[in-house]
């Protein structure tokens, strides 16, 4: 236990990095994912194809390989990104298709009669999507989107394998330095992760229940 308390500043520093990665990549992945989802439902076929290729490609590549690309292959191609930004880039790229798919399944979850009713009232594509479909889809996608963010929180640990000092690297470093307190340190690191994932999970479950009643 002493080893945990003594190294608390190190833990806090690492936790800050984890949160930085989570917030920044989460925000950017939400933006990119929304653009991809919009392409996916747009009437222009080439945008459809581009969006689905992007989604399938990134969803079927392991995160480790994406981060490897950003951290080690990109510098070979002339990038000078520091490792933190490489990890940010990799996590954003990897998370964005999951955001897009969550949005798309939310749109598919809106009853088809809603779209038909909107169309029969004479609303156009833009009107029926922005006024009828999206407001309803938006509520349905909040819980899945939170689940994507929970997964992202856990995924930030992979960045620890690529020279970013966050919670996982802190776990490695501190267990190396304090061989007698391995379990305490690992449990402390797990507690930091759980401090983010469990409240998010509760929020997601509560919202799901609340929105389900309203429908």
């Amino acid at each position, binding site marked *: 236990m002493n080893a945990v308390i003594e190294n608390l500043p190190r833990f806090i520093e690492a936790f800050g990095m984890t949160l930085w990665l989570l917030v920044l990549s989460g925000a950017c992945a939400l933006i990119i994912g929304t653009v991809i989802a919009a392409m996916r439902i747009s009437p222009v076929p080439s945008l459809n194809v581009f969006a689905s290729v992007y989604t399938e490609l990134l969803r079927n590549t392991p995160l480790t390989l994406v981060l490897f690309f950003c951290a080690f292959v990109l510098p070979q191609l002339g990038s000078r990104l520091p490792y933190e930004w490489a990890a940010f880039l990799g996590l954003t790229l990897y998370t964005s298709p999951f955001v897009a798919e969550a949005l798309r399944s939310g749109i598919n979850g809106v009853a088809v009669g809603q779209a038909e009713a909107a169309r029969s009232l004479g609303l156009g594509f833009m009107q029926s999507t922005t006024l009828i479909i999206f407001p309803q889809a938006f509520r349905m996608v909040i819980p899945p989107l939170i689940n994507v963010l929970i997964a992202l929180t856990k995924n930030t640990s992979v960045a620890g*394998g690529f020279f970013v000092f966050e919670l996982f690297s802190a776990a490695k470093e501190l267990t190396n330095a304090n061989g007698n307190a391995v379990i305490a340190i690992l449990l402390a690191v797990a507690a930091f992760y759980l401090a983010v994932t469990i409240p998010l999970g509760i929020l997601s479950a509560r919202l799901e229940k609340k929105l389900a009643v309203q429908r």
Partner: protein
Amino acid sequence: MSASVLFDTPGPRTRRRSRIASVIVVLLIAAGLAWIIYTLAQPRDSSGITLPGYFDWSRWDIVVLADFWVRVWGGLRATLLAAAAGAVMALVVGVLFAMLRTSVFAAVRIPTTIVLEFFRGMPVLLMMLFILLVASTGAFWAVVLALGVYNGAIIGESLRAGLAALPRGQREAGLSLGLTGFQSKVFIEFPQAFRQMLPVIIAQLVVLLKDTSLGYIVGYNELIRTTMNNLGSSVGNRYLFSLFLVTLVIYLAVNLSLSAVARRVARRRNPGKVLPKDQITPTASISAVGMSNVNPEDQTTE
């Protein structure tokens, strides 16, 4: 028939406009790709020496060596082996968790719930490190055990959802036939829940296969570690990009074919239950996982 209810069957003007937009987008994408390929093909300076571009044969000549492919296959086999062992374990753990989580005894149910939440909220990678350091099992078992427990927790949760979604009459019928509560759960409810949740489970197993790549970080010689680290250091850094492309293609081939299987299962389970026209977007292909109108892959945790 229009492909989607969101917009009308396009008339000649809209078709023309959409075609023009399509052509512009294709041109933009093609220009982007061409720029990337051109940049990659340029020779580059590296600390005084000029190296050839990335498509030069001197960066690719290892792919004709049989020894190269033997080593790549070794890595792929290690990945598949860890995934297979992890999958078996995840299924066993998942069934166990689902049973305990739905137990009638609160003394069993509540601790199981806490343990499940703990496992689901923690990164797999941290669990691997935990097993590696505390149980000192060696990298292979660290990868397999962590993947098994983590994915088992997720599969257990989806099985529980499947059990909860069954009509009450199933259990009541079992009980009225004289089965005990446990028998009814094992013989009546569980097989149905399992079938119901099969697409989600298979999609989760695809995620498990992807996650074996975390072995790269904890020192298990799976595909990425074999190609990028071991092969990379023995053939030299100039092959790094080629090795990366080879690894990427292998992963895509394996994962896409497994995802295709998951989709087939999802479709066969509910033949014709959700017609394409019941969905708003035209590209949606799979859905109908039991009661919810959600793609099985969307319910997994990546």
